[in-house]
C-alpha cells in the first residue's frame, strides 16, 4: 500500500535530494507517494511542520534545535532530524568596500577595532545578510566575525535576505556582506560586486547544513513511512555523489518552474562548480546515519544556536534536549 506524504521544501539547490528521490522513483520504491510542497519562507515551513500541515521538511539544522527548545518565538515541538542531507556549501562574500577596509588594516588593528572606531565616530553600523536567524549561515557569519575580533551582537547588525536577493542587496548597498550557498557567491564575484573571504568548510568543516526534519509524533505514528523516507533520501544523496552526469541531470530537474525556477546554467554552476580553486564540487550531499563521533559537532551546534537568543549559558536539561533531534 502506497502511503501519501507531504514534504515541505524551500526552492534551493540543496533541495536536490527531494527532487531526485521523486524523479528517480526512490520514494515510490519505498511505497511512498510524495507531494513536494514549496514553501514561501523558512518560518512558514517550520510552522506548517509543527502543526501538521506537512509531514516532513527540508530543514536548516539549527531550526531543528530552535523547534526542540522553542527558541526565538519558534513553536516548541519534539522533532527528529535523522539525516544530514548536505554538509557545508556556504561562503561569505563581502562588498568591495569592506574587502578594501580589511586589506587596508594596519599592524595592531583588527576588523573589530576598525568597526568599533567607526561606530564611535557615529558612522553607520555594517549590515550582514543571512538567510534565517536559525541557520548555519548565521552561525558561520558569527564564527567569522569572532575570528576577526568583531562582536556579532554589538559591532554589526544582521538582516535576513532571501538568497535570490543577496547579490542585488549587496549591489544596492543594503548589506555589506552575506553568507549564502552557491551560486550566489560566485555570481557576486563574477559581477565584480564582492570578494569571497571564507568558505563554510574552512570555518566549520563538514558543518551539517540541511537536515530531514519531522515531528517525533509523526515519526512514531508512521514508522514505515519514516524508514522509507530516510532510505529514499539516503539513496538520492548517494546518487547525487555518483558523478557529474547525475549532477547535470539534477540541475535540469531543479531548474523547472515547479522547483527552483532558475536557468539550468545557474544551477549547474551551483551543483557542479568548485569554488576558490577546490577540486571537488562545492556542495557535498551526505545522507549517512549520524554516528557517535559526530556528537561534538552537534554539541557545538546546540550551544551556538542557543546563544543566538540568550546570553545566559545553556542549562544541562536544555543541552540534552537540544541534542535529541539528532539521536544523541
Amino acid at each position, binding site marked *: 500500500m502506497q502511503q501519501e506524504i507531504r514534504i515541505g521544501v524551500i526552492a534551493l539547490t540543496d533541495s536536490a535530494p527531494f527532487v531526485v528521490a521523486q524523479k528517480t522513483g526512490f520514494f515510490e520504491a519505498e511505497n511512498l507517494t510524495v507531494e513536494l510542497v514549496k514553501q*514561501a*519562507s*523558512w*518560518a*512558514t515551513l517550520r*510552522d*506548517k511542520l509543527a*502543526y*501538521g*500541515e506537512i509531514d516532513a521538511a527540508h530543514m536548516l539544522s539549527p531550526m531543528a534545535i530552535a523547534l526542540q527548545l*522553542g*527558541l*526565538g*518565538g*519558534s*513553536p*516548541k515541538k519534539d522533532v527528529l532530524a535523522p539525516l544530514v542531507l548536505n554538509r557545508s556549501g556556504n561562503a561569505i562574500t563581502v562588498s568591495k568596500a569592506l574587502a578594501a577596509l580589511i586589506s587596508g588594516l594596519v599592524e595592531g588593528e583588527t576588523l573589530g577595532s576598525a568597526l568599533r572606531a567607526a561606530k564611535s565616530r557615529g558612522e553607520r553600523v555594517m549590515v550582514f545578510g*543571512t*538567510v*534565517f*536567524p*536559525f541557520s548555519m549561515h548565521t552561525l558561520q557569519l558569527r564564527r567569522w566575525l569572532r575570528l576577526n575580533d568583531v562582536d556579532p*551582537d554589538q559591532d554589526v*547588525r*544582521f*538582516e*535576513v*535576505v*532571501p538568497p535570490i536577493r543577496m547579490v542585488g542587496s549587496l549591489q544596492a548597498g543594503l548589506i555589506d556582506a552575506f553568507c549564502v550557498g552557491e551560486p550566489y557567491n560566485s555570481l557576486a564575484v563574477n559581477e565584480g560586486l564582492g570578494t569571497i573571504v571564507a568558505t563554510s568548510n574552512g570555518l566549520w568543516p563538514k558543518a551539517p547544513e540541511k537536515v530531514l526534519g519531522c515531528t517525533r509524533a509523526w515519526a512514531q505514528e508512521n514508522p514505515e513511512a519514516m524508514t522509507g523516507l530516510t532510505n529514499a533520501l539516503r539513496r538520492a544523496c548517494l546518487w547525487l555523489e555518483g558523478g557529474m552526469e547525475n549532477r547535470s541531470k539534477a540541475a535540469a530537474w531543479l531548474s523547472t518552474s515547479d522547483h527552483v525556477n532558475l536557468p539550468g546554467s545557474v544551477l549547474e554552476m551551483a551543483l557542479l562548480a568548485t569554488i576558490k580553486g577546490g577540486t571537488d564540487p562545492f556542495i557535498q550531499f551526505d545522507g549517512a546515519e549520524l554516528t557517535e563521533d559526530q556528537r561534538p559537532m552537534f554539541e557545538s551546534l546546540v550551544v551556538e544556536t542557543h546563544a*543566538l*537568543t540568550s546570553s545566559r549559558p545553556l542549562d544541562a536539561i536544555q543541552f540534552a534536549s537540544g541534542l535529541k533531534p539528532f539521536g544523541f
Partner: protein
Amino acid sequence: MVNSKTGKAATPPLKVLLVDEEPGRAAILERALLDAGYVLVSRLSSADRLVEHVAVSQPDIVIVDIDSPDRDCLENMAVLSRSNPKPVIMFSDEDNEETIASAIKAGVSAYVADGMNPDRVRPIVQVAVARFREFQALKNELQKTRDQLADRKLIDKAKGLLMKHRNFNEDEAYHAMRKLAMERNQRLVDTARNVIEVFEMLGGGGL
C-alpha cells in the same frame, strides 16, 4: 475609547499592522478590525521595508499572510530582541494551541510585541482567521463558477461540431455526448474535450 466587544474602557486600543498582498482580503479584514474597535496602524500590500516599518510604527501586533516570503525578515526581529526597542515575537499561545493551528491552516501568521497579554491578542487572531477563511471560501466559489463557465463553453463547442459534421440537431448532439460520457464513465466536459480533439485531428475543428 470603549471597546464595544468587551465594554472595557481602561486599556487603549491595540495598534495592528496588516501585511497582505491580496488587497481584497486586506480590505475585508481592515473593516472587521476597525468595527471591533482596534486601531489599525497601516496596511502594507508588499512586505518591502517591512522591518523598517515595524521599527518606526511600533505596532502591538503584526498580521502577515503566511505565504509572504518576507516572514523570515520578521523572524529576525524576534531573535534580535536585544537590538530592537520593541521586539516582536511570533504569536505562539501555548494555552491555546487550537488558535495557532487554525491560524496556520487559514494562512494567518501573527507577531506580537514582546510582553503582550495573549488574551488581548487572541481575539484579533481569531478575527483574522475568520476573515481569511471567508475570503478563501469566496475565492473557491468564484473559481468554481469560472470552471463551470469554461466547461459550458467546451460542451457548447463540441455540440456545435457534432451538429455541423454529423447533421445532429442540438438535442441529438447533447444526448450523443451524454451517452458517450456514460459509457466511458467520464464527466461530460471530458467527453466534450475528446470530441473536440477528434474533430481537430480530422481537420474539422475550425468552425
